[in-house]
């Protein structure tokens, strides 16, 4: 509960006036509704000339005074038109109140939801990378979307429902009690039962609903699994058993649905008894009171209408309150999510650019501390130079890249840029020096052009096209239906592995950052294109610094330095020529590739 309140407070911030004002308007509206309903009583009593102030209840007295401008009941008897006129004015008042109230309420709840959503998204995107790997993506998505919706429902709907009921029940009971406390007691005698009954029964209904929902989810999983594996099902001639399984699951679903619906129908039908019985008992008792001259016939009218106006909101509120558990769970999840520490990207010195040094760097994953992924890696790379990193799968090549970008922090040793430890720099400014191309690049479902320009400080068409050209992507792009404006992904063109890599390369090049980091990023590109790309890159004026992680000797051989990693350690470090002599592993790789590749000179 505390979490929900804190979250509510957070959401109200900045919208407090309108938020509370909408409740005030709601009160004014309910007041209007109660007033016009009360007019039925005054009307009946006026017609029967029953408005004698001596016997009249205080509220009626007040209304009579209002309608007669203080002239008493005789004025009303002779100016009966004030009754319909006041009804009409009351209606216009209610119309204006509910209109303004709803507009302001809708406005403020949506503004509040926007606030929470923005808060959550900004938090999501600021989480450290490791958090994404620890969390199930479905949970994160649910927190940012469905849970927010549930909280909005609470702020925009449930709270309103609650206050509406409080205002309505408060005003109606107050007036009813002031007219006749006996009638009041008889009228509300069933309310507590209605409330408690609804609250508890609907809880069970909801439980069964969830069971039904789960069964339906199973059904949907089966459908989507079957459809996604249509080839397999057909090849294994499993159509029949699929149908049988589906029928079984439908049977299960139907059984749960029936048990749910049986109870929910029973709930609505049975709780109606309280509602209608309250009304009937109130009217019969009112009749008795009229008979014994304790109340006027007009009061019998409001016994009916007031009870009617109270019971429905009461039942709804009981239902909503029993659903509060769901809201609490959502707000708990949101709070938990917001409490995860954000990655500190902004604090720290501004990163300079200069000589890059890895000084005895080791790294192990937090959950596997005993296994060093890389161990005592040291190298120096000067601006203008290119470093190639080679090694077998699992040798720690990519870890070097992750550490440089500070997606992870070294367990020992340090990395410096221009003589300064990168751990003292702000991650943001550090990463603004690096243009990475990952092995399995992620492309956004935007246009080709937007995908290229996404990392640029300022978008300009020239740079976009130039980068595409350098990445040898221009021909492919020209072949797409809408060229640079073709959407990538579901709604547009499906790219091959090589095209994806080249597009990611163009994206990195377009950033014009100092360090180009290619993490096995041309692995799906054939060697001819690979060569052409590298040629283009070196002709395009030397980049300030390039790190290439690769498995191809041909790609590596022109680098100023080649580092061969084996099980996380540096096996050898040197130029192509040096390694051909000094490194056993490099020589072996070169021989294999030399036989089948373009040859090692």
């Amino acid at each position, binding site marked *: 509960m505390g979490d929900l309140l804190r979250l509510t407070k957070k959401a109200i911030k900045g919208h407090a006036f309108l938020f509370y004002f909408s409740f005030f308007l709601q009160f004014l509206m309910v007041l209007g509704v109660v007033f016009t309903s009360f007019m039925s009583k005054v009307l009946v009593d006026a017609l029967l000339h029953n408005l004698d102030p001596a016997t009249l209840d205080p509220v009626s007295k007040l209304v009579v005074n209002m309608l007669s401008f203080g002239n008493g009941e005789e004025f009303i008897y002779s100016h009966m038109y004030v009754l319909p006129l006041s009804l009409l004015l009351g209606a216009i008042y*209610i*119309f204006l109140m509910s209109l303004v109230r*709803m507009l302001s309420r809708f406005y403020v709840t949506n503004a509040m939801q926007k606030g929470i959503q923005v808060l959550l998204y900004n938090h999501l995107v600021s989480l450290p990378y490791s958090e994404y790997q620890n969390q199930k993506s479905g949970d994160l998505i649910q927190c940012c979307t469905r849970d927010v919706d549930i909280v909005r429902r609470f702020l925009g709907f449930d709270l309103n429902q609650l206050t509406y009921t409080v205002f309505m029940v408060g005003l109606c009971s107050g007036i009813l009690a002031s007219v006749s406390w006996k009638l009041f007691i008889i009228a509300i005698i069933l309310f507590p039962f209605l409330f408690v009954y609804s609250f508890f029964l609907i809880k069970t209904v909801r439980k069964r609903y969830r069971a039904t929902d789960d069964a339906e989810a199973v059904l949907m999983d089966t459908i989507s699994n079957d459809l996604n594996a249509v080839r397999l099902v057909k090849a294994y001639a499993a159509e029949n058993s699929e149908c049988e399984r589906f029928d079984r699951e439908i049977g299960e679903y139907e059984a749960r649905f029936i048990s749910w619906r049986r109870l929910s129908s029973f709930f609505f039908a049975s709780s109606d008894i309280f509602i209608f019985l309250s009304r009937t008992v109130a009217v019969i008792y009112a009749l008795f009171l009229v008979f014994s001259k304790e109340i006027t016939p007009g009061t019998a009218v409001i016994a009916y209408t007031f009870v009617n106006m109270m019971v429905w909101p009461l039942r709804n509120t009981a239902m909503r309150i029993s659903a509060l558990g769901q809201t609490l769970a959502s707000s708990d999840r949101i709070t938990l999510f917001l409490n995860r520490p954000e990655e500190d990207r902004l604090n720290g010195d501004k990163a300079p650019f200069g000589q890059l040094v890895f000084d005895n760097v080791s790294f192990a994953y937090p959950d596997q501390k005993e296994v060093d992924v890389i161990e005592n890696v040291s190298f120096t790379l000067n601006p203008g130079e290119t470093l190639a990193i080679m090694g077998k799968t699992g040798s720690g090549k990519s870890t070097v890249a992750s550490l440089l970008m500070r997606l992870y922090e070294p367990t020992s040793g340090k990395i410096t840029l221009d003589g300064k430890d990168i751990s003292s720099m702000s991650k943001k400014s550090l990463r603004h020096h690096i243009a990475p191309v990952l092995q399995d690049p992620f492309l956004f479902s935007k246009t080709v052009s937007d995908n290229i320009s996404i990392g640029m400080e300022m978008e300009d068409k020239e740079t976009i096209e130039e980068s595409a050209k350098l990445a040898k992507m221009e021909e492919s792009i020209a072949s797409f239906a809408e060229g640079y404006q073709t959407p990538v992904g579901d709604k547009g063109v499906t790219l091959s592995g090589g095209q994806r890599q080249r597009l990611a390369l163009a994206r990195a090049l377009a950033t014009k950052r100092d360090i180009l980091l290619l993490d096995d990023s041309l692995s799906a590109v054939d060697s001819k294109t690979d060569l052409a790309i590298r040629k283009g890159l070196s002709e395009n004026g030397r980049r300030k610094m390039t790190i290439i992680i690769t498995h191809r000797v041909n790609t590596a051989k022109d680098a100023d330095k080649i580092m061969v990693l084996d099980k996380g350690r540096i096996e050898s470090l040197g130029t192509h020529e040096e390694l051909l002599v000094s490194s056993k592993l490099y020589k*072996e790789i070169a021989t294999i590739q030399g036989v089948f590749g373009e040859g090692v000179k």
Partner: protein
Amino acid sequence: MAGKSGFQEEALPDKLNLKIWFRFLALAKGDIKHLIKAIVTSIFIAFIDSSLLPLFFAGAIDTASKLPLTSEAQFLDVLIHVKFLFGIQFDLNVLPFFLIMVGGILVRCVLIYINFYFSQIFAMKVVSTLRRTGFRKVQELSFSYFDRNSAGWLIARMQGDTSTIGDILSSDVTSFFWAIGNLIFSLISMYSVNFVYASIVLGALPLVAIMIPFFERTILLRHRIARNAHSHYVGFVAETISGAKTIKSLSLEEKSSAEAGDIIEDIRKKRVRALRVNAFFSPLLDLIASGLTALIVFLSLRNDLPEFFVITPAITVLFISFVSAIFQPLVSLSESFSEIMAAQAGAEKVAQLFDAEVKIVDSPEVIEKYGDIFNPRKENFVPFKGEVEFKDVSFHYDNNIEVIHPFNLKIPEGTNIAIVGETGSGKTTLANLLCRFYEPTGGEILIDNKPYREYGIPYLRSQIGYVQQTPHLFPLTIAENLRYGKENATKEEMEEACRKVGIHDFIASLPEGYDTHLGEGGGSLSQGQKQLICFARALLRDPSILILDEATSSVDTSTEAYLQKAIDELLKGRTSITIAHRLSTIVNSSLILFMENGSILEKGTHKELMAKKGHYYELYQSQFELLSIDMQMEVRNRENKD
């Protein structure tokens, strides 16, 4: 950025297509009794709500306004005068009156139960029937259908559209009868009481009846737009999570936040825009009703009007209650109509699915002998020897562009063939033809010297094993997954198959062993482990002919090595066609086909083709480069073994 991108809203249809709704209704005719119960009760409920209870209450109020009659009378002797429908009038003592009221309430309660329950049950039955029919249809449909319609499209039909159809046919149909009943009983009641005021209320209905659909339609459309904006946001959040590494490493956080801000603002605007209409709608209806009330009260108070304008206070109150409730049926009718219109496009798509043509069917004689997919006659299935012959086989899709040019090929029993070539060269099509996912448009495929159509689909597929690129496991237990290969496989058989491909030890090490439940997408198994289970599944099937569609994506080296070992086990002793991507598979094949643009350009063993220095040689070289260093070493080893 994305905030700007608008959504293509599906427009509402112009015309109501009743035929389609009756068609679905006919499909559920076995359960129509539920619907009838719901309709009948809804009419009775309308009667109780808009005639019985209001008229009885009016009688009570009327009596109240005339009390007390005589001072010495007992309260229970008071007569309550009820004016009922069609001018029927009667007097009741307090006790019978009370009992009738309570009785009416109890009956209503029972009716409500029947009404709610059976309309829901009918909706469920409709949905189940539609889903069952759709699911069966999907099983029957030929492969070409799935080329044209994505799984996502079909899921949307089976999930959302079917449940909407169920709702329409039950809730909307029931509430249609309720609304009509309510209107009619209200009008009858009003006319029974006073025709002048009844006519005034009736006169106001058309005005409101025009206004309501306008609002309803706008509300529906605008809320749809807002919902779409929201689902766009869900997609955006998902992308943020799956693209986290890219966002972090390119330092795109600020940009993403700004974009999210745009999208969220877009949702907010669209929601407020939709809700604005809601804010006007019901207050406006209330205002009209209250105006009408004021008019009635005003007229009833005039004493210069003809006699039939004169009503008692109780009747005035009765009319007030009628007026405030009379618009509800209109709102509900209009709502139902909007919902039907909104659902029509979906219903038509479901009908399209049901009507889709099944392209590949067996002849009646073949079905007679070997059964159909739902009733295979397994007793007649004799294992194939496994000789496959393509005789002048050619193939084109519906667009008539030939993708496989006529070719001849005879594969002797037990031969392992590898087909290589670029994407789009026709490799997969060849495999699809052999599985009879498609049929050749020219020539014939013979198995054991007999045209393969003569075996029929169930028989043929029971003899062909198929392992696809990406391992697919169902979210069932491991054992259940294995049984896809052989329905009644024993525990021993399963273990043996798993042992052969080298996954048994792993499975046995799991706490629940073979009964381990695999979650969505295979749960916590690695890609390689999943693939091995798929291999074991194929092995259990023990097919005469095996088709292996190798994965292009690279797995880590040690996995690659044990997968290769498992593949060797799988291919042993049977005819196999491998759409080969792993050079390690290719180099050991007894026959390699090089395909390009639907033709076989080269044919031979690895050594022969390498010596030829043609297409294969070049392909091999470029493929080799893409391999990781470890795999390059592995392939070299295998070549030398040969």
